[in-house]
């Protein structure tokens, strides 16, 4: 895939970190405000997709990235399962999805028990998944047009 003009590239250089940071903000504040893992993860993926779109890419590097993203995605899902499965192991109630951490006070950043943790792994998962989808479709397109 080819890159775009100098204008898009420069703006991407400046804006991609900002978009990424905003995605992190949305994920971390998922239990306090609208948003959360999925929405934030999509924003994170947008930063990466913007970079790929504006700077262009070559097939081998895309394939390499796909491997890493797949790994990240599965690790994140495993993290989700482990966090929610810990309730089965740790607590005396043996409940899946048990909120076993102290929930704190409403409105604070550090509150909500396991929900922020789950938001973070969901965010990583969604980011990896959407970037993977994008890369996979790009790879297919390149294969088809060649």
């Amino acid at each position: 895939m080819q890159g775009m003009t100098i204008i898009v590239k420069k703006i991407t250089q400046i804006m991609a970190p900002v978009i990424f940071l905003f995605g992190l903000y949305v994920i971390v504040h998922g239990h306090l405000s609208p948003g959360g893992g999925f929405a934030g993860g999509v924003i994170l993926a947008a930063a990466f997709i913007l970079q790929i779109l504006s700077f262009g890419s070559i097939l081998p590097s895309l394939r390499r990235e796909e491997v890493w993203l797949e790994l990240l995605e599965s690790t994140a899902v495993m993290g989700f399962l482990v966090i929610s499965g810990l309730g089965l192991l740790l607590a005396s109630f043996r409940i899946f999805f048990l909120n076993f951490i102290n929930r704190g006070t409403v409105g604070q950043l550090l509150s909500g028990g396991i929900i922020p943790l789950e938001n973070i792994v969901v965010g990583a998962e969604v980011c990896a998944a959407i970037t993977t989808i994008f890369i996979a479709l790009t790879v297919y397109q390149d294969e088809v047009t060649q």
Partner: protein
Amino acid sequence: MIVYILCFLLFLIGLYGVVVKRNLIKIIISLAIMEYSVNLFLIMVGYISAGQAPIINEEVSRTGPFVDPLPQAMILTAIVIGLATTSLLLAIAIRLYGKYGTFDIRKINHLKG
């Protein structure tokens, strides 16, 4: 009530597109329209006029009428599922294009039944 009917109409428009259109991409778009209509319907199911956003913090009192948050959670899940199905459909469509060189469903007829 009219809004619900319009929603159902949108659903039917999507269904029409799925049944009638011959282009793979147009079929996918029609499916997406159907999905949006269902999502719209769900969000209206949970809507209460003059209801607050269902976030509890210091400013919002706990007593006021809240919009039902459950349909919103359902929609988020449905959107994620829709993302997965749409991307899988697009991937298959691209692969089909690679095999046949066309998006026209009349020319993609390897299977008879």
